[in-house]
């Protein structure tokens, strides 16, 4: 299945219960302003819950599954969009129902929101909505940019909100026949539960041998820059090594109790080693408390690795001409691919542009230069911000005149990504040939 089709399928799943609602609605439900507002209120409730359930299905990180959707970061983006649509619909849901009551009287409107008799269903609905607001507040930066660990902790409340929303729906829903409604919500809930079960059960048992969660040991650490460490990880005896492709990333959990911060905390890092290497390598830049602590992790300490995730590069060999544009630590996925291509020593047509502030921060320059010197078809161009300013069309045309005909891969900080994507699009590079990878709390 192609990526756009797979993503469309998710939106279709989200819309299906609303379509059934509309098909089964009767003329009387649209016969007056009050009736229409009431019907729309119930419709937004059903649509909001179904988008919430589809977003929950995507909350599981099943290694390999994300490839169908263009990689885990793209899948997270869809998850984020589905949750946003669900949130907007569920905010509208009680308001429309109350407005419907207001057409009769103020008391009637308020009794929809805060019923005096049989208050349980509405109360549970309120609880679900308030819990949803709490766990989504960091995701949508309601009160400023969140800390990663706090965001992860609060996000676990999503399960509570979902269960409350389902109870609320079962107590009140009457639009779709009860049997069909039960089947529909059970199916959606079952899929979401399966995803979560995998997350908490199967992946921990390493049933997937070379995927899922694996134990590794830190056996080496090098410092390509003062604020970047490249960790070398060795798999545990009698345990399979992680199978991955260049450009993919892992979730990494250190268990070094001497760490100043981040003990047993999970963070995503890009793999920098080539898939054929015996040991796994990741490059970590000092960007926060945990990544700062990792700069001095103890050799010999144990870590947990989960993955691989991502689909930055296509699977298989390098068969087309490629343009790589990397900003700072964004060189990591390219480094993995460059090491892989160098190991295979096959025919390549790659132009790599590494954008850094100055020569002192030219991360992995020497190794990439070495690869460029011995691998025909591999060209390295350095872009220094202090000398050239932000990268622009003239720079690209000057150093890689045929860039418009290449498949373009871009990885770096968000401002650079935005800038390069703008240049490529305005130069006529089709969107399907522009591939980006960014690691952000969306």
């Amino acid at each position, binding site marked *: 299945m192609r990526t756009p089709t797979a993503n469309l399928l998710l939106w279709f799943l989200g819309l299906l219960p609303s379509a059934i609602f509309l098909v089964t609605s*009767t003329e*009387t*439900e649209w*016969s*007056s302003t009050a*009736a229409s507002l*009431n019907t729309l209120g119930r419709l937004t409730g059903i649509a909001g819950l179904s988008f919430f359930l589809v977003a929950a299905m995507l909350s599981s990180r099943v290694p390999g599954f994300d490839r169908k959707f263009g990689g885990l970061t793209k899948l997270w983006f869809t998850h*984020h*969009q589905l949750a*946003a649509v669900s*949130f*907007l619909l569920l*905010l509208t849901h009680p*308001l429309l129902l*109350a407005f*419907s*009551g*207001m057409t*009769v*009287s*103020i*008391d*009637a*409107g*308020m*009794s*929809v*929101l805060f*019923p*005096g*008799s*049989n208050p349980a269903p509405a109360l549970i609905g309120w609880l679900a909505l308030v819990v949803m*607001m709490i766990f*989504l507040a960091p995701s*949508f*930066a*309601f009160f400023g940019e969140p800390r990663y660990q706090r965001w992860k902790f609060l996000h676990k409340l999503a399960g509570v909100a979902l269960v409350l929303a389902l109870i609320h729906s079962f107590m009140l829903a*009457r639009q779709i026949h009860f049997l069909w409604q039960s089947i529909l919500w059970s199916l959606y809930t079952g899929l979401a539960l399966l995803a979560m079960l995998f997350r908490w059960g199967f992946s921990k048992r390493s049933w997937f041998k070379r995927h899922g969660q694996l134990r590794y040991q830190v056996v080496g650490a090098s410092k390509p820059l003062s604020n970047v460490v490249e960790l070398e990880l060795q798999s545990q005896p009698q345990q399979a090594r992680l199978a991955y492709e260049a450009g993919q990333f892992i979730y990494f959990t250190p268990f070094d109790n001497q760490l100043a911060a981040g003990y047993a905390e999970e963070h995503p890092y890009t793999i920098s080693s080539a898939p054929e290497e015996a040991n796994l390598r990741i490059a970590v830049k000092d960007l926060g408390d945990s990544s700062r602590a990792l700069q001095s992790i103890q050799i010999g300490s144990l870590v947990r690795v989960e993955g691989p995730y991502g689909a930055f590069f296509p699977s298989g060999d390098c068969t087309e001409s490629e343009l790589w544009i990397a900003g700072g630590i964004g060189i990591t996925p390219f480094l993995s691919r460059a090491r892989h291509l160098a190991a295979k020593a096959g025919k390549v047509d790659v132009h790599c542009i590494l954008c850094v502030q100055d020569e002192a921060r030219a991360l992995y320059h020497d190794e990439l230069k070495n690869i460029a010197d011995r691998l025909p078809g591999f060209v390295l161009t350095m872009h220094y911000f202090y000398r050239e300013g932000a990268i622009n069309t003239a720079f690209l045309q000057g150093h890689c005149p045929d860039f418009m005909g290449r498949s373009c891969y871009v990885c770096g900080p968000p401002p650079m990504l935005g800038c390069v994507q703008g240049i490529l699009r305005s130069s006529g590079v089709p969107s399907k040939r522009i591939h980006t990878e960014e690691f952000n709390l969306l």
Partner: protein
Amino acid sequence: MKKLCFSAFIAFWSSIATMVAIHALAGQEQPTAVDGATYTPQEIAEHASQDDCWMAIEGKVYDFTDYLSRHPAGPGTMLSWCGREATEGMRTKGYGPDHSDFAWQQMQEYLIGNVE
């Protein structure tokens, strides 16, 4: 998307606060006065059709003729209760759960008197 969600979040609580404030300022509304009109069960029983439907609910008489076609579950649901005591229908919907507070409020529009 972040800005849109935050705006909706603020708009939501503003709307709720406005409704609560209006409700508090307006005070309790009383059911429509019906000038002490009373009807016997026999009189109510004369209005037992889709074109002329009265019901007795908890000692009060309602003329639901105009509402029948607007019932969310269709006019047939209410028809069997026309012309008679219908408290059970209102309280159980015929299978258990009570009607919502909203439905009870909405019903007051159709109040025409008390059962004698």
